């Protein structure tokens, strides 16, 4: 979400991170210590935040729980570390966390230069605009001359500049250091437009006194594929991380959910039989047990369930599935078959 510029410290870590990750066996290490160390944002509603019982919840958190379920048959065999956007990649390459599930945007430079691998896209996000309904603005193209509130040091600011330049429009940015200040400034009317990733826009809108006074414009001006990240150089761990994500999607596609997973064990559908380990063994080659996907579904649920539970329309954040719907429902979430 926040794409603060990569610090020199992180750049310095590349060489060291690359040599260090040559030592194999994250899976063995994780099994030996008995839990997964998972890096999260810590304080973004719907993605990773304490619930009313002070237990971690959210989409990022559920991914780590799914990973723990697949490895340990226990969704609580995971410890969470809140990471700032500056320290997240160092924490990963130094081995302080085994997996980074921290709404990190998948970009080419990160993927190729930081000694890390992106597992997949848990959440397709994109930058959008929010305006006051009273201003009667219906499209991003009506924003010429507007004052825009943005957070300093993020690609949000650059994306907005690109968008306005491309469409030949004038604009003024009002820059703040902190997300809270940006929102406050917009709320107080110091600017006409508030821009950030659309998931965050929705979350912020839900906090306003009268959310319906504000509209999020339909334009999405950037691609922000957010996903979990692992260290480069350990393919066994990478496969586990990646297929945990695919299992969440595959289960949704096959209609297997937390509620019906036990009935589905008796299903006649060969694809379901393969996924749940009733027929064939796809877990052992992964370094896990035969029923790895069954455990994920039993303990965490499928992608649709975790989405609806954390960020879906029924939650205060209220995000429609949009791009995050399965490919057959008009979205772009797609998992290769378990075969």
């Amino acid at each position: 979400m926040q794409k603060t510029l990569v610090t020199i410290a992180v750049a310095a870590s590349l060489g060291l991170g690359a040599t260090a990750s040559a030592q194999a066996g994250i899976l063995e290490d994780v099994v030996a210590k008995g839990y997964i160390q998972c890096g999260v944002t810590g304080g973004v509603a719907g993605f990773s935040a304490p619930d009313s019982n002070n237990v971690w919840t959210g989409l990022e958190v559920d991914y780590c729980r799914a990973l723990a379920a697949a490895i340990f048959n226990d969704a609580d065999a995971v410890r969470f570390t809140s990471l700032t956007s500056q320290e997240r990649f160092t924490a990963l390459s130094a081995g302080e966390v085994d997996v980074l599930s921290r709404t990190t945007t998948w970009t080419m430079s990160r993927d190729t230069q930081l000694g890390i691998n992106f597992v997949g896209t848990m959440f397709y996000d994109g930058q959008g605009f929010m305006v006051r309904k009273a201003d009667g603005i219906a499209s991003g193209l009506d924003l010429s001359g507007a004052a825009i509130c943005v957070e300093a040091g993020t690609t949000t600011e650059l994306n907005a500049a690109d968008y306005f330049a491309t469409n030949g429009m004038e604009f003024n940015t009002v820059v703040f250091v902190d997300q809270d200040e940006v929102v406050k400034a917009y709320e107080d009317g110091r600017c006409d437009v508030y821009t950030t990733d659309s998931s965050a826009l929705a979350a912020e809108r839900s906090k306003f006194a009268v959310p319906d006074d504000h509209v999020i414009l339909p334009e999405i001006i950037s691609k922000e594929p957010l996903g979990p990240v692992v260290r480069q150089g350990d393919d066994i761990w990478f496969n586990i991380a990646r297929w945990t994500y695919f299992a969440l999607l595959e289960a949704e596609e096959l209609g297997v959910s937390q509620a019906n997973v036990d009935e589905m064990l008796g299903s006649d559908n060969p694809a379901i039989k393969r996924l749940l380990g009733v027929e064939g063994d796809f877990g052992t080659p992964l370094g896990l047990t035969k029923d790895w996907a069954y455990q994920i579904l039993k303990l965490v649920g499928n992608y649709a369930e975790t989405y609806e539970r954390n960020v879906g329309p029924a939650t205060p954040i209220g995000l429609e599935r949009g791009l995050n719907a399965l490919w057959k429902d008009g979205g772009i979430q797609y998992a290769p078959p378990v075969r």
Partner: protein
Amino acid sequence: MTDTGYVRSELVAAKPAPNPTSGAVVWAKKNLFATPMDALLTAFGVLFLLWVVPPFFNFVLGHAVGPMGTVEECRAITAGACWAYVYNEMEFFIYGFYDIPQLWRPNIVFALGALLFVPLLIPKLPFKRINALLFLFVYPVVAYFLLAGGVFGLSEMPTEKWGGLLVTLIISVVGITLAFPLGIVLALGRQSTLPVIKTICVTFIELIRSVPLITILFMASIMLPLFMPQGMTVDKLLRALVGVTLFTSAYLAEVVRGGLQAIPRGQYEAAASLGLGYWQRMYFIILPQALKHVIPGIVNSFIALFKDTSLVYIVGMKDLLEAVKTKNDSALEWQSANTATTGYLFAAIVFWAFCFSMSRYSMFMERRLNTGHKR
């Protein structure tokens, strides 16, 4: 001239009463309306108070939603501070992610700490030596095992789960207790005549004092892991503790050195002429006098340390302030216009209470130890 007499035939007419020299009106005249300029300033002052105080009072108490209120009341347009939010999220603010059924453990730690610490502060109570030994050596071990668990059938509670006021207090108490002796040693080392010791102390103090705390914590959280073997990590809380302690000790060293310099040379010589060794001289003669002079400076450092603990958010720890911020950002079921403000107000009150107590206690200590050196 015969009608002249010395006997008064009627009463003297009463004179007006003399101008009063005390009372509210006189005080006001003297202090508030002595000159036209004073009167003008007073008028401005009163207007300012009228402008600021009633809205603030209304926000904090008058229109506020009490602890038992609901979020709907907090969302009302006229509502003030939303204390119901603070009340409901109190557990997170105090303990962070600590498992709720296990909260008796930090509670015992808090209670034990208060039980051992408060008597230390009251000069009249006996058994100071045993009390201090218990607090400094036994209590930390007991507290650590109670909080972290993993022994005696207590479930393991990794430091990632600790948070809120618990972490703020751990860092400040441990920081203060360790930084104080370390600072004294550094100050003495800096005055040493042995070049190696002197150089080490000067380098350490100057190095640490020349960088902001935030840099030290950042180093500890981002650079340190890169220098360590793969898979070996140092606990984040420990890193923060070490960083905060080293930082404060460097500042304390300079404060204490100021006190040492205030002691006349004759005191050192008199102590030496009694046949006392170096440590005895320092312990019995020099330090008791030197430290007394610099109580305000020392307490200043402690208060700074207490407030600086909120910088540990840099290493991803959720201290009191960060815990409040986390809930402000993520507790959507409590969102209202004043939720975040109330959260921060709560944090401010807690910080104020602790820092103000420290400051008052230091004034008490100064008065108690005053032996006539004060001017």
